[in-house]
């Protein structure tokens, strides 16, 4: 499988590593030179330096032959537009995005992004699960 990840931050780099381990081909886009250098050093040359919601950058990252595009930046406007370009221009089969601000959920849904990871909801549910036994004890 060929996966393009937008964002070489904590989420993006962990994802890249995971996909590579599972035998997929990966490209990572980030506009921060330092982050791309660090990731390239760790995983081999997989980064494309540039803006995620930019068509030429996306072409360079191989969006034309990609199975899955995953947006992981901390900025919802970049994640949203990049996914819409991935779908509208490159007809990527699956688009995935993190959702930083829960309030943007409706907009992301309407954009037809296939899988949305609501970051705050995720953290809350993990904590709830961890705390549940404690709360039961206290009763």
């Amino acid at each position, binding site marked *: 499988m060929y996966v393009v990840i937008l964002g070489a931050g904590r989420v993006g780099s962990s994802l890249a590593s995971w996909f590579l381990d599972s035998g997929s081909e990966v490209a990572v886009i980030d506009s921060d030179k330092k982050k791309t250098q660090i990731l390239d050093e760790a995983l081999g040359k997989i980064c494309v330096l540039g803006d995620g919601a930019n068509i030429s950058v996306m072409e360079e990252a191989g969006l034309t032959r990609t199975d899955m595009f995953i947006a992981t930046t901390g900025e919802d406007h970049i994640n949203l537009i990049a996914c819409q370009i991935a779908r509208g*221009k490159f007809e990527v089969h699956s688009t995935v995005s993190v959702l930083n601000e829960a309030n943007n959920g*409706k907009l992301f849904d309407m954009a037809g992004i296939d899988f949305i990871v609501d970051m705050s909801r995720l953290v809350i549910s993990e904590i709830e699960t961890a705390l549940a036994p404690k709360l039961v004890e206290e009763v």
Partner: protein
Amino acid sequence: MAGQEQQEPAHRAPVYRARRILILGCGQLGSSLSIRLSDSGNIIRIMDNDSEAFDLLPERRIETARIVPVLGDGRSEGDLRRALAGESDIFLACTGSQTINLMAAQIARNIIQIPKVICVLEDLEVAAIFEKLGLESISSRKIVADQLFERAMA
């Protein structure tokens, strides 16, 4: 309406309805646009997340509430609704960021459902993608390129 004819005196200008316009982005483009639109008798609210940006607006217009500056973030549906203060006719996304303009324009059009939404973009290809999604946009590069072409070939 058959049989009814309005006799307009020759010197009378056509009736112009003041439109309620929200501009996102108080940079060079947004601020000068707000002045022109206000000159044409429209009611302008202009939003920016940096209060210093409003220094570009003429104080007189702010004092007379012909141009109302609103501090807020165009990526937030809540901030946009607050800035729109009820009904608005037109939303113009004019920040320096293509992605912010696109996100704000989609909130305005698809969620808040402002009747007329126009988005400023740089990239022609991106404009084409979003046109297919029903979003009206203006590409600054295209306009410059078209003008240069016409004038060079004239």
